[in-house]
């Protein structure tokens, strides 16, 4: 299935893109993160376990256990610092 992946702030800068369409069989956000990390390079560095990475599914704050569905909009970003 295809999902739309977005990146923000430091992760966007590291990966060098604000978003992309990703073909995946991952059934959770955590498995999608694993798939991206496996691509190596900036993906592996910026999404690495041990980094504080927040994620959203269809624009709702989520965690790695949340199920992924075709056509979903997923976002990976650092801890938020607004206000």
């Amino acid at each position, binding site marked *: 299935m295809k999902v739309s992946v977005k990146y923000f702030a430091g992760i966007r800068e590291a990966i060098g893109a604000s978003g992309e369409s990703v073909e995946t069989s991952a059934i959770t956000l955590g498995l999608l993160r694993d798939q991206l990390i496996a691509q190596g390079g900036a993906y592996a560095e910026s999404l690495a376990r041990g980094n504080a990475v927040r994620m959203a599914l269809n624009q709702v704050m989520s965690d790695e256990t949340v199920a992924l569905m075709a056509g979903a909009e997923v976002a990976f970003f650092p801890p938020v610092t607004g*206000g």
Partner: protein
Amino acid sequence: MGILPTTPRVFIQTADFDLSTEVSILRDQNAGVGAVCSFVGTVRDRTAGLAGSISSMELEHYPGMTEKSIEVMIDAAHQRFDILGARVIHRVGLLQPLDQIVLVAVTSAHRGESFQACEFLMDYLKTQAPFWKKEQTPEGARWVDARVSDDAALAKWGLLCSNTDA
């Protein structure tokens, strides 16, 4: 389901705002309002107390999710506190020291509810609304680190928060 707003409550904009104008719109000529509490966040020129260490700040957000997440927070504030209305403005883009960044304004019949709801909304926004600050310093640009103390501030409302967790 959220409480359906009759007028927009959340504004993400590059433009500055005027506190008096916003409070006036929020009060909406409602004579049942007995209290207005507002918070304005402004850009400082320093980190670690060093004046002049920040020359400017860039605010990034997640269009769509940012607005939705703050709408959810306002719904939560309505459920938790006996408030009459709330209005949130958050600026994005390039800001300078002294600029206003954020406004949270709340109305209620009595002061206690609007004081509390205003702080609740700010604590919530700090840790759950997708914004990111990048500071321009003499050493170059750097992304601002999230604070553990902001997670703790939300926890005092009984809400678990892991914004800073690895």
